[in-house]
């Protein structure tokens, strides 16, 4: 009942939530939305009929206080009635099946234009890696896509199962190691769309948030150009950069154009171009960045990044270096 109310309400009102499945802004999510309205209407109709019959029978056929104590007429069954309530559900099921089949084919069988943007999404415990083959862009946790054109996502996993779910853009698809998956989105509206990992992947599954930035084509192109350049090398290297490159940081992190080429953690080349830290859990401010480097577990207990045991001075230096990575 509640779901029906929510659905009908959502058709006319703005989203109740940034992750409302009934406020689609992208082609696959819209096809699902249309199907869900049909399914909800059928389910609601059946609910009203059957619960109405149930309510009627418990009111009408309850034992009265002036009951004569005799047993009611014993009825053992009726073939006609049984036939009726077998055939009716069969017809309803067929209708729902055909409607469902249409949407499955329209989403899974969508044509894949050659010039469509292609992004490889790699799920990690507990963050997202985005690689744009051909555009020389590698980034983390914040996916940028152009509005009004389809983007195809290749879904891979570096470790356990994950699931990519941004409800206003598309249904979820799992990222499974050794089992490459595909999905696509075609957003119709610019803005930031939220979601999060929807397949339990370990301790910090809850804080593996998704942010998709849908931008106009010129904005998107500008972003790509900015991401494609290597980090400006400062000469001579700053104290923070020296520390960064002489501790274990570079085992996991990449900063293009420097010695840091680790692949285990997010690429930091353009760290300051991102709005959030730790897969969307905190605003990307120097204070939060410093807290994060000091002890990642304070913000995200169970995160796989270890505390490096830096002194306050060293923390300041590394933070200063990282904030220079624009």
């Amino acid at each position, binding site marked *: 009942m509640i779901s029906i109310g929510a659905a009908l309400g959502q058709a006319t009102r703005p989203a*109740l939530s*940034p992750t409302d499945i009934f406020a689609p802004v992208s082609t696959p999510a819209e096809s699902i939305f249309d199907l869900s309205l049909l399914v909800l209407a059928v389910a609601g109709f059946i609910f009203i009929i*059957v619960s109405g019959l149930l309510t009627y029978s418990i009111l009408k056929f309850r034992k009265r206080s002036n009951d004569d104590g005799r047993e009611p007429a014993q009825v053992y069954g009726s073939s006609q009635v049984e036939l009726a*309530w077998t055939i009716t559900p069969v017809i309803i099921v067929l209708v729902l099946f055909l409607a469902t089949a249409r949407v499955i084919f329209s989403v899974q069988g969508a044509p894949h234009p050659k010039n469509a943007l292609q992004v490889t999404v790699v799920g990690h415990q507990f963050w997202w890696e985005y690689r744009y083959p051909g555009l020389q862009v590698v980034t983390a946790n914040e996916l940028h896509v152009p509005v009004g054109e389809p983007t195809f996502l290749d879904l891979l996993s570096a470790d356990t199962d994950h699931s990519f779910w941004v409800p206003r853009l598309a249904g979820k*698809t799992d990222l499974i190691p050794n089992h490459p998956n595909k999905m696509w989105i075609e957003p119709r509206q610019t803005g930031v769309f939220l979601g999060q990992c929807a397949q339990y992947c370990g301790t910090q599954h809850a804080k593996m948030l998704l942010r998709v930035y849908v931008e106009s084509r010129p904005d998107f192109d500008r972003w790509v150009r900015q991401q494609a350049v290597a980090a400006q090398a400062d000469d001579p290297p700053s104290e923070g950069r020296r520390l960064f490159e002489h501790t274990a940081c570079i085992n996991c992190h990449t900063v293009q154009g420097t010695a840091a080429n680790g692949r285990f953690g997010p690429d930091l080349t353009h760290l300051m171009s991102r709005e959030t830290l730790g897969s969307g859990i905190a605003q990307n401010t120097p204070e939060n960045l410093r807290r994060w480097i000091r002890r990642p577990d304070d913000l995200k*207990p169970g995160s796989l990044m270890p505390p490096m045991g830096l002194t306050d001075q060293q923390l300041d230096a590394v933070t200063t270096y990282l904030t220079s990575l624009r």
Partner: protein
Amino acid sequence: MSTTDSVAWPGTRIGARPLAERLHGWVTTVDHKRLGILYVFYGFTFLLIGGVEAAVMRIQLIRPHNDFVSPQIFNQMFTMHGTTMIFFVVMPIVFGFANYLIPLMIGARDMAFPRVNAFSFWLTAFSGMFLYYSFVGGYGLYGLGTAPDVGWFAYAPLTAKTFSPGHSTDFWTLALLVSGFGSIGTAVNIIATVLSMRCPGMTLGKMPLLVWLNLVMAALVILAIGPLTAAQLMLLVDRYLGGHFFDTQAGGSAVMWMHFFWVFGHPEVYVLVLPAFGVASEVIPVFSRKAIFGYPIMVAATIAIGFISVSVWAHHMFTVGMSAGGNLFFVLSTMAIAVPTGIKIFNWLATMWGGKIHFKAPMLFCVAFLFQFLIAGLTGVMLGSAPFDWHLGNSYFVIAHFHYVIVGAILFAVFAGIYYWFPKVTGKMYGERLAKLHFWLFFIGFHLTFDFMHVPGLLGMPRRIYTYEPGRGWDAWNFVVTVGVFFQAAGILAFAVNLIRSSLRGRPAGSDPWDAWTLEWSTASPPPEYNYASIPVVKSRRPLWDLKHPEDPDWKYE
């Protein structure tokens, strides 16, 4: 054993036998009734434990960014809650019902294999305790316990040594492996008993529906437990003998684990729900004072559900990237199962139609069962529509859906069954007022929790998250969901007080307090160890109706 043994329900006077001797009698018993009681008692004990785990999760989720428990503890809680409720609560309780009732209902003196029966129970009992030992011994012998935290369906490769060091996953694997053997033993026993121990005159077509439903349930157990057991063995090989079945880093397949698990997991849902249907099919006719409507169709629908239920498993996997054809097949089979299930609901309704409905506690629970099972079925159809499932799957909507099945349908039917047969099992009447208090508290709590739980799912809240961000529109819903838990807990308290008080001080119930029609009501309450002094002979599906209405017996119409 002497015949007085069989009335050794706690609190009944059975002479001056010392407590130790009476307990010893319970441990060594092979009597189907005592084993049935042990199963149910065991299941309810674990229900309390699993309930506490649920409450911990709900308190953690009462508001965003709460820090009642750590993520590690939260992940253990949902793993243990799910595993406990499926394997060590609902399965033991339905096996307990089957054990206690089947021989009585078919006019037999015991199950076909009494010692296998006892062995199966103790395997199950051991495996539950073994699982909980992980809290103490999960990291080896250092007293550093950690319960399994891989989720109750333990998707690969999270269970690989790389991601799950220590032994917590092994406790989970071995506990399910061992309880699986117990389940198969019981299932074989049920099938053998039903097929070969029926009293004269009771053809398959004259068995009470509860017996039919348990027969199909037992067949499903045998089909379903095998793949689960195989998967657990393969996982052990991966973890200790260098196998790579599910080890994706060495080329194993995570998707194969999903198939193995759900080939078990979906029939398992019907293993749990068919016995609940059985209870409803006995209680609704008696309290409506009418014969069950459409008995042959009910049996046919049960068998149809049994067959279809083994072909729907991958509807748990619509998001793992199956081909369109694969998705279509599982959409069709999943929706097809709604047809026989719908037939059952209509037949129960038709049984009530034109009757004289007595709203005693068992019937109240059954009416709520009908209402809630209807909703569970309809949300099931929504989830069965694969594209809709791409949103709903793994969200709080699916949690609400299957709790509607397992609590709203199965647990409500279990409560109906407990109140209905309590006078038979103990010879005492339960307290009706306290039972109604239990009903209303639990009914309100259930709806507060699980109605409102659908909504955050529709608003994008995934399952298994220990905390969530503010500003997603989930806060108020989660608050109400948590409030409902306390009503449910109060209901369970009323239930426990009622059972304990009534078994100690309830008024004598007599052999047939409900004026019912199946054979178990023809023997004493509690039944003697041998059940029937002379084996009954039946001519219809309602032998006691025939006896009470010689002028208008059922066998004239069947």
